[in-house]
């Protein structure tokens, strides 16, 4: 089993990350870490700033001056999104971000577009087909015509095609039927076993903590708590804030 000496190795390090949209302060001096191969969940209600944080890490939006994002000993603050993928961070955004008019095959091939993944395209495709056998059967299908759960599989598979060291997932279970969500988290648990780091933003507290090592609580743009997944599952604050209302 993978050992995780967090105190020795940090893969992703956020220090004082602040994000503004005009006057609105979306993320307020957030500092957090993800170790290599670690699975971390950020829990929080809608509008807490979780999506903004993932967007800043992946270079889609720019954090305020004073923010620092380090990934594998490189400063990636302000690096444009198309280079972040090449550095080893793959984002599965809210809404999935697929090329709807193209086939499953083309979407996956595009996933292997960053230079770090091109030579490995065949192996990555085998891995992805092994994780999601349904995609192997549906290679020629136009993505737009697939169900929400299948599209989510394509989105995750496409991100994995880029051979990432860290996978960012923005509410992967949003809008999916409960049985599909179960299947999705089983797949995420298996992806975790491959050694890739996962940073997941979720509202489904039980399932996401179930596959995580650690979790952060986020409220109104700030991190308000942190703990191991097991501790958070039994924590009173988490119980009151999330588990009382979320089934």
């Amino acid at each position, binding site marked *: 089993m993978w050992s995780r000496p967090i105190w020795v190795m940090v893969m992703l390090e956020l220090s004082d990350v602040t994000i503004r949209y005009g006057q609105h302060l979306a993320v307020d001096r957030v500092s957090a870490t993800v170790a290599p191969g670690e699975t971390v969940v950020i829990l929080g209600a809608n509008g807490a700033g979780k999506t903004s944080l993932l967007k800043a890490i*992946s*270079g*889609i939006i720019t954090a305020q001056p004073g923010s620092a994002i380090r990934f594998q000993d490189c400063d990636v603050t302000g690096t*444009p*999104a*198309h*280079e972040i*993928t*090449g550095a080893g961070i*793959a*984002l599965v*955004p809210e809404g999935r*971000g*697929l*090329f*709807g*008019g*193209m086939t499953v095959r*083309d979407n996956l*091939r*595009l*996933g292997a*577009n*960053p*230079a770090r993944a*091109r030579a490995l395209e065949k192996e990555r495709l085998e891995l992805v087909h092994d994780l999601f056998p349904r995609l192997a059967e549906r290679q020629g299908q136009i993505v737009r015509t697939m169900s929400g759960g299948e599209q989510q599989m394509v989105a995750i598979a*496409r*991100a994995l095609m*880029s051979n990432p060291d860290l996978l960012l997932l923005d509410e992967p279970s949003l809008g999916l039927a409960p049985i599909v969500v179960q299947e999705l988290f089983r797949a995420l648990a298996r992806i975790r076993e491959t050694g890739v780091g996962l940073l997941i933003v979720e509202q489904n507290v039980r399932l996401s903590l179930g596959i995580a090592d650690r979790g952060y609580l986020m409220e109104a743009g700030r991190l308000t708590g942190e703990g191991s997944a097991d501790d958070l599952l039994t924590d009173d604050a988490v119980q009151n804030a999330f588990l009382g209302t979320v089934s």
Partner: protein
Amino acid sequence: MLIDTLITGLVAGGTYALVAMGLTIQFGISRIMNLAHGDTIIAACFASFILFSVFGLSPILALMIVVPAGYVLSDAIYRLIMRPLVARAPNAGALEVDSILVTFGLLFVIQGVLLVAFGGNYTGYTFLNTPVDLFGTIVAANRLLALFLALVFGITLIFVLSRTRWGMTLRAVSIAPENAPLVGIDINRAARTAFALGGALAATAGVVVSMYQTFTATIGVIFTMKALIVVILGGKGSLTGALIGGLLLGLVETFVAAYIDPGLTLAATYTIFLLLLILRPTGFFGQAG
């Protein structure tokens, strides 16, 4: 008569297809509606004319000079004129409007330079004007060559864009530019490449047109107009649509001219255009949304 009309229609259509493919690639990927596209074609016609009459270079060889030149010059135009527009545009819609205004100006710049250099008279040269017997009809060899070149360039481009990784990244940008960076695509670079590629296609069309037809410095706008019709006919951003739409437009024009009345050519073109806008505004190969 029938075969004669058919071939004339296909030759014209092949040219329209090339012209429209250039426009649709610029519009679909770079989000630039290039109103100076036709004038780029005419500039290439004159370049081909100079190479032929001054340097004695056949248009086939001229392709090897004019097409790369079209790519490089369009790339320079993009860096110089379009990039500031792209940088300040808040969204794709604003860029389209800005680009229409700017390329409308560019149209007159190119036209003005050509008028000063070559005057306003019809210009042309005689190349491969040998009669060929095709199914009992006599056709000039240069027309057949023009059709052949248009199809070869058009089909090669469709093949490259649909089969190679490079082509796939360009298609991805045309489908969902906001998602392209997620797979490591630099959309600014893709936009510049597509604009330059459109310029290379315009240059190809210019050389091909100059082989069988006379031209003046001021007829560029006619090519732009027809390309616009074909692009909407085939579906915005669709290369296959542009190829088929171009051939179709050429055939309709020629058949209406031959069998109904030459004066109704434009009327027929616009009737199709109007019907399509009403019945299927996304074009034959267009995707909704």
